């Protein structure tokens, strides 16, 4: 509890991180209240060919798309897709990656080596390349994008947790709890995990931004949710036929992606400054 209030107090002092938190809150609120905020909520599935490709005006804040649907309303509903993909994909990656990292870090032997080499293979290829291969084989849908991202992102947490667990193992309090006869699961869950939680939180926050970018790229390539889904990457891809006349078409979804990813990156940077004591020290050095 004490750490949580410390964290919030520190975050409130860091205006840049606060801006990040603000952008993320905006995304969450948008996703929750999309039906109320949208001016044309039916436009997710409805077409109005008469009104196609109209520029931004009071009737349509961000203009209309090739089907005559209101881009502003579609962006709001797109926030739901973005959050769903990012939260589930990252959640699954953490749930797979952290236990594997703990086990590989705690035990020494061929099994640990095998686990780490497996994660190295996944890290040896750029995430989007494997994600493309998986999403392509499974067919375009949101579920498959989530699956492809989860399957390629878990090793990031495995690496991190493995390294931190290994460095904690020589600490006296870990040795003491082992000497007292605590079973391995107890040492891992109650003694090691709480101490590496801050690193996991930082990595997860920054990972959200990266996942949203990759998901948008998959959508752009046509591997995401099929039409007429208001997925931001897909909207940008659709707009290309109508450039340069319909300049507003790609502007709004691109800005939406930018703001959300920026939010997670800024918050992640701020959290790292607060939670990582090594950086805290170099910061003090920095401002000297």
């Amino acid at each position, binding site marked *: 509890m004490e750490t949580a209030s410390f964290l919030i107090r520190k975050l409130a002092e860091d205006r840049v991180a606060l801006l990040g938190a603000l952008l993320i809150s905006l995304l969450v609120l948008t996703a929750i209240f999309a039906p109320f905020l949208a001016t044309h909520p039916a436009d997710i599935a409805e077409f109005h060919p008469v009104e196609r490709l109209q520029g931004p005006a009071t009737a349509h804040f961000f203009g209309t798309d090739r089907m005559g649907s209101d881009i502003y309303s579609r962006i709001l509903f797109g926030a739901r897709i973005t959050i769903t993909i990012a939260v589930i994909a990252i959640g699954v990656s953490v749930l797979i990656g952290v236990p594997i990292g703990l086990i590989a870090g705690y035990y020494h032997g061929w099994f640990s080596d095998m686990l780490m*080499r*497996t994660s*190295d*293979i*996944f890290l*040896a*290829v*750029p*995430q*989007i*390349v*494997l994600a*493309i*291969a*998986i999403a*392509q*084989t*499974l067919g375009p849908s949101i579920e498959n994008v989530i699956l492809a991202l989860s399957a390629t992102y878990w090793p990031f947490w495995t690496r991190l947790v493995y390294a931190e667990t290994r460095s904690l193992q020589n600490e006296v309090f870990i040795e003491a709890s082992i000497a007292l006869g605590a079973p391995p699961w107890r040492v891992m869950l109650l003694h090691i995990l709480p101490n590496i939680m801050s690193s996991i939180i930082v990595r997860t926050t920054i990972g959200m*931004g990266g996942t949203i*970018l*990759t998901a*948008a*790229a998959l959508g*752009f*390539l*046509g*591997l995401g949710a099929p039409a007429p889904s208001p997925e931001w*990457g897909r909207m*940008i*891809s659709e*707009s*290309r036929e109508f*450039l*340069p006349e319909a*300049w507003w078409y*790609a502007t709004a*979804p*691109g800005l939406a*992606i*930018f703001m959300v*990813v*920026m939010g997670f*990156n*800024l918050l992640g*940077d701020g959290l790292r400054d607060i939670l990582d004591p090594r950086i805290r020290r*170099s910061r003090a*050095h*920095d*401002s000297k």
Partner: protein
Amino acid sequence: MKLLVLVLNRFFWFFPTVLGLMLVTFTISHVIPADPVAFVAGDNATNEQIEALRAQLGLDQPVHVQLYRYVLSVVQGDFGVSLYTLRPISHDLASRVPATLELTFVAVLLSAAIGIPLGVISAVNRNSLLDHLLRVFTVSGLAIAAFWLAILLQLLFAMELGWTPLQGRVDGWGPDEVTRFYLIDSLLMGDLDIFLSAASHMMLPAITLAYPAMATIVRFTRAGVLEAINSNYVMYEEAMGFPRRVIVWKFVLRNALIGTVTQIGLIFGILIANAVVVEAVFDWPGLGLYAVQSILQSDYNAIMGFTVVAGVIFIVVNLIVDIAHGFIDPRESR
């Protein structure tokens, strides 16, 4: 001696990693689809056609035999034929590697040429308005979707201002193929027109790729310079009366760059990932565009070929960076 161990160790892990990568692509292509043959044959195939295709592709064999054959053929550079053009995938991929490599090399040079000076300026003027502005600029580079930036640049410079071509690699026929890098080949031919055409086509895709990579370079150079500038040898050089300019740009920078060089592996990862979408936007005839076209044609053989080749390029780059790092900074060779 330690260095030799490092090099051997890295080489030793190269083969299992590539083998593991093949195991992953094999799993994706042979195990995940409920019936890969029906998937390949399409919806209209009859049962006899499917069975014939199954035997032809060797998919009626047990899984371990399939895996063995798959690894054997990939090692020999055989990725099978494209399900769309029926041409060998290895030919298609080989003809497209130079375009992607040329683009990524130019992007790396561009991002280093701009990123390193910006990182130094940022560190020397730390916590000034300039430093904060540069921070916003670089953080944005890591948050912007590459395909969106590509479209914005196209919209402004190609469509509105007409300063650069919209897409493609060169006007008309390319230069005689020697290195297959158009910028070099056109100079070898002595044809300035083709060189200028290739350079102007290169401009927008290279900038799009370079921006996020540059952001990473600025961050690490800034951190490296800040660390080096507080060390004792800098104090000594100041006492010796070296001008500040010489100390920063000559002595400090050289030490600061070690950290930046080790990030080239990471930067290359960003570049390959972004090249897929950037090549698609600029119609740049490289590996990325090939992958995108294969996605549109559901050509899963070609996608797996692309995955293996992109993976191997990435693994080789990281191998080189690791070894180079061992030479630059012997402390790191554990």
